[in-house]
């Protein structure tokens, strides 16, 4: 489903609070990757999911107390499950107030011909690693290389950054093994490059595909775009926060 830009976030050791906590599981899916995604149904990237109480899923209520009174390894308590209720709107404008409404899955099953179910977990579920980052310069350079407008949302990253050093548009690829600090609290080790699949070929506004993007990545960048990180110091991040290399 479609991602969204948010003004601030709490990033835990398990990823961003509220990120990807619902997944759609296909009965006929690969046992190792059972998720129903835009890879199976391209138009699925056009579905719009939104929290019905958005403020509650951005920051834990007691976050400041954990900063001031506890060791940095303590994770604050998350909101109750009701705070994470999600509404869904389909590309045709059909609205479901609750993603767990059986009618949502029933309609999706008719559309796709698959047996599906919604899976919920409060700490997020990921088909790769929980925290990802890509630079706007990398996105722009790929667009330039292919002569197309490159919408950053194709890359579905958690963090989009701008590097001061613009000599290498793919600078983040050189950071594997290094630690970044974002804002006042968050620290994360860049653990590996992000190997891409066909999700990036899908236009976030139309679901039309551009396979040449994935082909170009494979032939020029070993198939990688952006990086994955492991959080070593959890914390709040605000849009526009500085990024430091430690």
């Amino acid at each position: 489903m479609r991602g969204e830009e948010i003004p601030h976030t709490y990033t835990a050791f398990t990823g961003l609070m509220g990120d990807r906590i619902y997944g759609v599981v296909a009965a006929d899916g690969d046992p190792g990757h059972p998720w129903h995604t835009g890879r199976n149904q391209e138009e699925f990237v056009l579905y719009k999911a939104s929290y019905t109480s958005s403020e509650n899923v951005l920051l834990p209520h007691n976050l400041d107390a954990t900063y001031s009174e506890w060791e940095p390894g303590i994770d604050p308590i998350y909101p109750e499950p009701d705070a994470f209720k999600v509404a869904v709107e389909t590309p045709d404008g059909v609205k479901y107030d609750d993603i767990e409404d059986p009618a949502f899955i029933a309609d999706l099953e008719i559309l796709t011909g698959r047996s599906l179910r919604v899976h919920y977990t409060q700490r997020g579920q990921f088909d790769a690693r929980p925290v990802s980052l890509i630079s706007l310069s990398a996105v722009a350079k790929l667009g330039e290389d292919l002569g197309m407008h490159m919408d950053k949302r194709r890359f579905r990253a958690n963090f989009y950054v701008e590097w001061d050093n613009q000599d290498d548009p793919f600078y983040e690829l050189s950071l594997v093994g290094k630690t970044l600090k974002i804002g006042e609290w968050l620290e994360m080790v860049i653990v590996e490059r992000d190997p891409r699949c066909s999700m990036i070929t899908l236009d976030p506004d139309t679901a039309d595909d551009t396979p040449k993007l994935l082909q170009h990545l494979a032939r020029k960048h070993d198939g990688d775009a952006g990086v994955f990180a492991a959080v070593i110091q959890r914390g709040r991040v605000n849009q526009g926060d500085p990024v430091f290399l430690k």
Partner: protein
Amino acid sequence: MSQHEVSDKNVESPLKEAVDKYRLTLDGEDHTVPIATGQTLLEAALAAGIDAPFKCKGGRCITCLSWLRSGDVSMADTKTLSKRNAERGYILACQARPSSAEPIWLDFDL
């Protein structure tokens, strides 16, 4: 439009000697690719020194998505091939082996 079918993993082509080369289009250029028994279309292209796009070789990343303009193949795994792409006649070159004597034309210029 070509037909392709799903078969059990790692099966060899039922027509071992039927196809010994195929036509491949990439970046607007045509290539004739020798293919040995049991090879996938991707393996044969890479063995021929062609810079065909690929990443996982396991039918997961879909980087080797390509258009089977003619010919017949069987694919070991098609779970990641969407209905839309299958209806277009697209295949995963890393999973595809010749399955008839029909000449194969594989096009990466999607």
